[in-house]
């Protein structure tokens, strides 16, 4: 079944409704003008955005708040790990950049020495049916990160919108199994191939970035940053968390909670020392983490080019542009130019 199949728009609705019998189905919803994944209520109108979905899929695999153990003080503090559970799940309508994000999270949670069992379980129970983007939104720049908006890598199945419905294709066994449906019709059509624009935020190599560690530019770049945590929460590859106990009347849960390196509290240690006290040091950490540390550790830079950080930024500040600006500075430095002149007008 290495071919594309066609499904009418109305049939897609029926197809997805039918899936809910066995699966927990997640589809994009538009809430107050923003796209977000939610569990599909049968009968609700289905729609898919042409490109990036505002809220990333991170929460599905690595929730904001995730109990990992429970305890009861009355029975002398017995600590019980939370057993992963949940019925099989399908996510329909994620994009190539979302897959890239999940791939990166896999590296962090599954391929390191300490495997995250809960993440593994969430991954295992989920089938990914991706949608190929038909356009690039304002902040999209996956093409500069080695992706294409219509790439199918990492998906179990993929689909694309055409004028009178959708073209679908199973890619893995899991995906093919899901797609077994009476609504699919064999066709000869294939999704349009487009020439995607690139070169918006070309960035230097991780090694070159590392050389910028002691540069003065970080102060300049953090002048106008709030150092709130929203870009890290929106980012599909920011996976820092905090472990904390939550107690209520003698019973409690040990939970992991999203944390953010942009917050001052993140790097504060017992005794009060803070290794990243200045906004500049925090901005540097995130920039280098995305463009250099990630590569050094996992062989892949962790910016997927989804542009969500720009969308959520309270100041509409462009994080990818920081990378680009830095790259410009790296080039200038190499040319032996002085430090001035590299300042972009758009902070």
């Amino acid at each position: 079944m290495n071919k594309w199949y066609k499904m009418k728009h109305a049939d897609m609705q029926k197809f997805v409704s039918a899936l809910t019998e066995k699966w927990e189905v997640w589809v994009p919803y538009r809430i107050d003008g923003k796209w977000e994944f939610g569990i599909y209520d049968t009968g609700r109108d289905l729609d898919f955005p042409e490109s990036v979905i505002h809220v990333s899929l991170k929460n599905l695999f690595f929730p904001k708040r995730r109990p990992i153990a429970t305890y009861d003080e009355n029975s002398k503090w017995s600590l019980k790990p939370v057993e992963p559970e949940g019925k099989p799940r399908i996510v329909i309508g994620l994009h190539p950049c979302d897959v890239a994000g999940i791939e990166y999270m896999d590296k962090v949670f599954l391929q390191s020495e300490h495997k995250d069992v809960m993440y593994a379980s969430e991954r295992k129970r989920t089938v990914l049916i991706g949608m190929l983007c038909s356009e690039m939104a304002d902040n999209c720049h996956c093409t500069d990160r080695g992706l294409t908006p219509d790439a199918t890598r990492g998906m179990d199945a993929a689909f694309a919108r055409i004028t009178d419905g959708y073209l679908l294709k199973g890619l893995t066994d899991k995906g093919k199994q899901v797609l077994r449906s009476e609504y699919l019709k064999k066709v000869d059509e294939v999704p349009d191939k487009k020439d995607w624009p690139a070169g918006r935020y070309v960035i230097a190599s991780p090694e070159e970035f590392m050389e910028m560690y002691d540069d003065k530019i970080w102060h300049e770049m953090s002048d106008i940053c709030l150092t709130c945590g929203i870009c890290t929460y929106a980012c599909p590859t920011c996976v820092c968390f905090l472990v904390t106990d939550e107690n209520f009347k003698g019973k409690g849960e040990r939970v992991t909670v999203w944390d953010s390196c942009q917050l001052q509290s993140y790097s504060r240690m017992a005794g009060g020392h803070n290794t990243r006290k200045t906004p500049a040091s925090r901005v540097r950490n995130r920039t280098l983490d995305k463009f250099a540390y990630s590569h050094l550790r996992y062989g892949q830079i962790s910016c997927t080019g989804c542009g969500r950080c720009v969308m959520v930024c309270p100041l509409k500040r462009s994080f990818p542009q920081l990378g680009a600006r830095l790259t410009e500075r790296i080039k200038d430095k190499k040319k032996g130019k002085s430090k001035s002149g590299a300042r972009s007008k758009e902070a």
Partner: protein
Amino acid sequence: MKEMRKKIEELLKNGEIDVALGYRENPATGEVKADVFRKDETLDDMVFDERCVQNLVNYLPTLVARYKKVGIVLKGCDGRSLVTQLVEHRINKSQIVALGIGCEGVRLDGKEADKCGDCATNMTPIVDYEFGEKKQKKDPVFSKVKEIERMSPAERWKFFADYFARCERCYACRQICPSCYCEICVADQQEPKWIEPSAKLSANTMWHLIRAYHLAGRCADCGECERVCPQEIPMRLLNNALEKAVHELFGVRPGTVPEEVPPLVVLNKEDPDTILEGKNE
């Protein structure tokens, strides 16, 4: 605007200020953002109009730490938040030059910003150079607060619980607020855990109550918290409810009088005990 630009140019040139904090327009996109203007650059893209929503005061502490003297463009509401900064020793007045501009209101999402309807002063109370027209002060109306106050307690809780539940705890509201500057925010403290760090209703409720309470009598209603909230939680409602309360209880309109000590640390033996009583439902 022209006048102000000229003044800033002059101040930069003769070294009276090292940098100026103002609003810069990106000619390509028409977007306006806070930015730092330096001596050697042109001020042609410095603007002040209804697009200048941001409160620049939040950037001051970082800037005064790095520069000796900073010029800052101030709307009325932003100036009010500067009052708190000065009273609380966060910024030394000698390090700043306040460039007040008679604000005609700002626009957000295509319509006049909500906060402008409750504007207490269009000119900053702290000002070194004044530009534009200063208008007569009027009292904020807080019609949305009054609307909520008309609801029953259960309805009110339903209204807020829906919003609180959505909070992600990204702390953008805290970070953008000039008056939220604790070294270690109580929400980040683990021992004791007054506010649990996870984004769940009970902890979020604690966070929003504390945030609002800590700003009581200090909030200048610049509305930034609400503007930056990615979940669109109506945080101004809480701030305004307390601004209204502080005015009703102590007759104070925070930030409108330079050097006024925040009302919650003022000793007043004459407060009537009736302020401790609930409003009759």
